[in-house]
């Protein structure tokens, strides 16, 4: 039994060991390179554990999932999301190495914090209990407060950290209160048991009988769910809760922004997915609420991004829009009789994976041209003028990422969009589909802007003044981001041209 537990949580164990080892190594001698390598090995080990669990342990397990008490459930979904979170953390780790290499001190903690945060994300992917959910969320968020403000000598970074801390704490309050109310109404904290709890059954009965709102427990559950949506919505930055996103994205150091935009979103989304999939009695009105939020996010995110002059802010708003597209699948999951054209879980995993890939690819390029010693990261559109003529490969990679985000065929982004559109078609969500088209059309404008800027003639741009391509000349250390960028670019392209292997991987996971 105990051994089974240890097997089940082996990815988490691997990561925690890596964090501890890194800490001990730091006690002996400090150095960013050493920390990054130690943590990098940790991620690899954790990924190996995930593959092992998926390939060898799960198929022989009862019901194809493992339980760790009531808190965690290791199943296919969880492993897919955990795997993606680990890949995201891994890439951010190396981005951090490139980014911080020139900082003389205080570089090591960065990698451990990213590691802890990734651990939280993995925990979230596995959690089926309010307690583990909360622990995971906090484990993921708390290091991020510090990470966002990592360049404490930089006013913007400091501001980002504090802003994220305050708003995140408030969102957590909502989440906690929601959980408490849910507990009061249903008598259990486990997502699995919520379905079976007697209270839930009775509520289900009440809903079917059409006395919605009359039974006090139903109103309580609605209230609880609304509060939880606020809490999770904040982390996902869907529209009415998005105000922190652009500022924090802009101020946080580049690798941290990458982490915020990818791993943190992905993990929280996996939780939301579990809530929606595991609680079938959820009120229809809940899905109306989700639909409204989705439409707002799709249109709002894209519209707000239109006139931004900073790529990090653009990416912030674009991530809002992408989450909006993703929420289509959530709504479909609720209103759907099974057996449509495409599998919803697969669509979500694929879309998130593709989004993560393209976002990380973008940040790889941006990290290569940024440095913590500058007043700010190189993120203004003007900084990228003429990048194509000075650094053709980086610019080509960034262009590909932008095209992919816009969802042009033969890039990975299109595969995701195709899946989402098919899901919407399956579930007959016409309004959502219209917003998807409209949002994508608006989105094109700013993706194209980023692309074109790189091809315009350079105008004494700060990038050109940076020590001639830092990533290219910096030797072993700084080329980490370059290497990640190359790999991600290739994957994005290959997945776009020939998505079959990736689909098979996610489908069979």
């Amino acid at each position, binding site marked *: 039994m105990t051994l089974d537990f240890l097997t089940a949580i082996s990815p988490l164990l691997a990561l925690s060991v890596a964090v501890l080892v890194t800490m001990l190594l730091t006690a002996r001698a400090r150095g960013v390179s050493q920390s990054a390598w130690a943590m990098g090995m940790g991620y690899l080990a954790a990924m190996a554990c995930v593959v092992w669990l998926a390939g060898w342990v799960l198929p022989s397990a009862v019901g194809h999932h493992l339980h760790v008490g009531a808190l965690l459930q290791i199943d296919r979904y969880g492993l897919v999301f955990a795997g993606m979170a680990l890949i995201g953390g891994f890439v951010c780790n190396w981005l951090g190495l490139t980014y911080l290499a020139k900082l003389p001190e205080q570089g090591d903690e960065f990698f451990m914090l990213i590691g802890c945060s990734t651990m939280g994300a993995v925990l979230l992917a596995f959690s089926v209990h309010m307690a583990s959910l909360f622990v995971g969320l906090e484990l993921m968020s708390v290091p991020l407060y510090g990470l966002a403000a990592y360049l404490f000598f930089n006013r913007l970074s400091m501001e980002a950290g504090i802003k994220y801390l305050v708003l995140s704490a408030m969102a957590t309050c909502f989440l906690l209160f929601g959980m408490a109310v849910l507990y009061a109404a249903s008598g259990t904290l486990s997502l699995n048991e919520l379905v079976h709890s007697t209270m839930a059954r009775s509520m289900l009965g009440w809903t079917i009988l059409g006395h919605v709102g009359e039974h006090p427990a139903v109103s309580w559950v609605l209230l609880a769910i609304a509060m939880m949506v606020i809490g999770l919505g904040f982390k996902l930055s869907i529209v009415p809760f998005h105000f922190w996103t652009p500022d924090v994205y802009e101020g946080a150091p580049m690798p941290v922004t990458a982490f915020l935009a990818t791993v943190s979103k992905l993990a929280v989304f996996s939780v939301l997915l579990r809530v929606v999939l595991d609680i079938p009695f959820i009120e229809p009105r809940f899905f109306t609420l989700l639909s409204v939020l989705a439409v707002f996010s799709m249109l709002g995110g894209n519209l707000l991004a239109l006139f931004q002059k900073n790529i990090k802010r653009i990416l912030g708003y674009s991530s809002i829009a992408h989450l909006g597209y993703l929420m289509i699948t959530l709504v479909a999951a609720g209103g759907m009789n099974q057996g449509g054209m495409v599998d919803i879980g697969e669509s979500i995993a694929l879309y998130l994976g593709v989004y993560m890939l393209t976002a990380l690819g973008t940040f790889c390029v941006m990290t290569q041209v940024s440095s913590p010693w500058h007043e700010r990261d190189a993120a203004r559109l003007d900084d990228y003028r003429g990048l194509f003529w000075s650094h053709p490969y980086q610019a080509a990679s960034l262009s590909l990422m932008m*095209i992919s985000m816009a969802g042009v065929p033969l890039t990975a982004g299109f595969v995701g969009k195709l899946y989402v559109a098919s899901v919407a078609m*399956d579930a007959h969500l016409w309004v959502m589909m219209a917003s998807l088209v409209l949002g994508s059309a608006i989105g094109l404008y700013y993706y194209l802007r980023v692309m074109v800027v790189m091809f315009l003639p350079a105008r004494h741009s700060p990038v050109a003044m940076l020590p001639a391509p830092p990533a290219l000349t910096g030797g072993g250390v700084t080329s980490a981001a370059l290497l990640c960028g190359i790999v991600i670019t290739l994957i994005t392209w290959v997945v776009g041209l020939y998505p079959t292997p990736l689909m098979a991987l996610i489908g069979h996971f």
Partner: protein
Amino acid sequence: MLLLWLLIIPFIGGLLCWCAERLGPAIPRFIALITTSLVFCVSILLFVRGHYHLQTIGDYPRWAMAVTLPWVPRLGITFSLAVDGLSLLMVGLTGFVGVFAVLCSWREVTQRVGFFHLNLMWIIGAVCGVFLAVDLFLFFSFWEVMLVPMFFLIALWGHDSPYKTRVQAATKFFIYTQASGLLMLLAILGLVYVHYTQTHEITFNYMQLWGTEMSPALSMILMLGFFVAFAVKLPVVPLHGWLPDAHGQAPTAGSVDLAGILIKTAAYGLLRFALPLFPAASAQFAPIAMIFGVVSIYYGAIIAFSQTDIKRLVACSSISHMGFGLVGIYAGSHLALQGVVVMMVAHAFSAAGLFIVCGQIYERTHTRDMRQMSGLFGRVGSMSGYSLILLMASCGVPGTGNFVGEFMILFGSFSEAPWIVICAAGGLLFSAIYSLIILQRIYFGKPVSNAPLRRLSPREGGMLLLLVMLLFLVGLYPHTVMELSSQPMAEVSHWFSHTRVMP
């Protein structure tokens, strides 16, 4: 395998152009020239190897050659290409116009030559893909992919005009076409979904989606999804906003490609997908589409008349010409459809020629504003003669291919929609007016200066001579073109009118 070469050659050729840039600016040009010539040669080879005669008309299109490779089995997507007379004609045209696009930018483009030709070659490759794809997903992919290099062509090598930058024009072009493309994607998905609900099999294959049963309302919605995408590209009048800007700002090669082949993809799409897949809905929609066509004819001519920028004028005139195409397509008779094909071919030649002339005038006078270039006659040598012939062709003087096309369209449509044809025929008058006005404004009047300008070089003169000769060839002996397109057009016409009789 021959079909695959049509895609492989331009894409690889483009990459070679980019890589060869470091060897000198001339190398990419030669590579591009060879690449486009090879595309043209392959299409000739296809012509020689395949059978394109009129045969019996079945329920399915008769391909002369087809190839299918697995691509995304999970979603029923295959990499299927096929060719019949229509696609062959279009592919040949693509290769041919491609050669001219390379030739006409020989001196115009001096910066980043390699990347320029990369984009040019990829446009050619993607357009070939559009003309060959018979998997809806593959078709859509190429349809969207051809926009990206075109976007770069306009945004990076275009001209800024006082009231609009080239980046704005390129962005406008991209957003118009991409957004409408998304509608088509939804229509494709809708079609696939309907097919899936009936057979529980996901497929994007054109032949399998053929004849999917659906309610008239749904069929109309899906048809409109396709129609809007094609109407933006054609362009049909309320959706034409991108075209004058894109042409006005594009480099010559971009305009030649855009007018010569890119807008032909829309007409091709209507003939290949919108009509055969949704014959009943199309027949129902035909009167409205034809009215759009007539509006385009007049509106295009009127805005062409009011332009002062010579390239914008030619661009607007192609709106007018494509209006004729739309009328012919939705008339649906065999004669009218044949006329559409002849007109597309002839228009590709005449529009390409006119844009090349515009480019040559710009290289000499450094302006495209017609108000600043009166009296060029006698200063530019034989160019004025070529312009005269090309403009005569453009306004449909007998003896040129455009006349044959327009005449057949009007003649073939008359029995279907007499009033529409009567209205459309009036548009011919307008085209004569704006064509003459170009000549009047550019070549006659008081010369700005008397200094002789550079004469046509053999390269420039040769291009125009060849185009003019081809225009006459199509005009005097359209048989080759018509024979090639006879089978596919007879099929389209058959399916289309078949449902009209029995709604």
